[in-house]
């Protein structure tokens, strides 16, 4: 087991890694090398700490996999902020 792995959260709309599906809010433990590979694969993962600094308990309903409705403007803005972290990390 790689002990440098850190918990990350997916902030894209949907991706599939080795057949496993991830939706907004899905967690996965990634090493820096794995994160770099996923960056290359155009996925959108941020660290759990970064995620927790943006999203709070008030967003729990939106982050449920069962949620099918429309995001509030405030939640939408948070998602954009989270995705911007990925873009900045990639230097885009």
């Amino acid at each position, binding site marked *: 087991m790689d002990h440098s792995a850190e918990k990350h959260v997916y902030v*894209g709309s949907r*991706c*599939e890694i080795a057949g496993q599906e991830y939706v907004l809010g899905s967690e996965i433990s990634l090493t820096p090398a794995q994160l770099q590979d996923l960056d290359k694969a*155009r996925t959108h993962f941020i660290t759990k700490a970064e995620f927790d600094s943006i999203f709070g308990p008030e967003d729990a309903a939106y982050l449920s996999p069962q949620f099918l409705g*429309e*995001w*509030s*403007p405030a*939640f*939408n803005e948070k998602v954009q902020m989270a995705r911007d972290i990925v873009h900045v990390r990639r230097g885009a």
Partner: protein
Amino acid sequence: MPFALSRLEHFYAQLETTYGQIPNTTGTATVGNNNFIRHIKYSPRPNTAIIERPDKTGSRSRPVGQLGRKNASWNLSLSAAMNGVAGTAPDADPLIQMGMGQAGAATAGTAAVTAAPSTTPVVATVASHTFVVGDVLNVTNGATYIGTFLVTAQDATHVTLTGSVAAQSTTINGGTLSRVGYRYKLSDSILSGSLWSFRTPSTIDQRVVSGAVCQEYQAHIGRDFAELMFQGEGLWMLSSNQYSVADLTQKSGLTTFPTEPTTPVANGNFITGFTGLIVVNGNVISTIQTLDVRCGFQSQTVRDTFGTYYPTSTQGDIRTVGTSFRLYEDDSAAYQNLIQIAEARTPVTIFGVLGNTVGNIYVHVLNNVQISAPDYEENIRYVASFPESTAHETATGAHDELVIWAM
């Protein structure tokens, strides 16, 4: 002896930097998890010609032939899926690049709408913006998606959103115009790629077409899911179980046939094929049944080089970008205009938006389409079937008969 189940296949695509050289590091293929693309069907095949001696033999029976030139052909279909996050290239990026002839580019820029009078199309007022005519914009209000529209006019503080209608003005007002997307433009360059098929079990032939070029691209819109199709030629189809007897050209730079990457990554969801917007000559056509975009890129391999059995490089002929579509006849002004422009062969812009979720919207802009007059069919309703109509560049060298946006 295990069977190879056709569901158990993964497709990967890579662009080549040198024609016919599979991307590699000192002979080891660099195909990786990020080259994975979900697909419906991939049909690669190696072609080997037989040359029969034409001389008379004194017999009506055929003499045994000799091995002729070798090459490959391929055909791929997949459902349209963008990245899921606007501004990021879709997984099918290498395939679209092979068709369009150059890399796409991320587009940026947003503007808040401060007023939107009730007109068709809606002309949005903004404090300032960087949009130009031909841009494609997503319009949202909060988290609500309003639509994806084409900029057909603008000044310092106004943007005309073709495809929008007066009824949308109240939601566009207070919303945001966004060009955050990924845009592909045509180029006269020709890009080649290596197209992989990894199957299960791994002992069955794993395959790669090297030196692949895209001859044709099609997008089928209006069905339950939007299907994209790419096809073309290649240098050779190398297979893992034939690797040991392959010659250097067939090996295309590899020193060993790779195993499949272990954790392939796919982004985005497929697009529901009947969602979106079709605009012809500024009129929203709501009665569209199906619309197909067909691009004959005419990128080919050079297959007549003296001294070699294999294709040696690429060449390209005049490309043909066109569209055909079917819609129900009605008495609307939009339909009447469509018939007028078809009969006059007036060049018009066709703007096709597929999808209704930001980050998963696929747009074709076809310029100067000279629509052919329709064939009329009788189903339950009368149907006007507009046959293949060709798009043209707006100025010599503009290469803008087709622009593709992932929004």
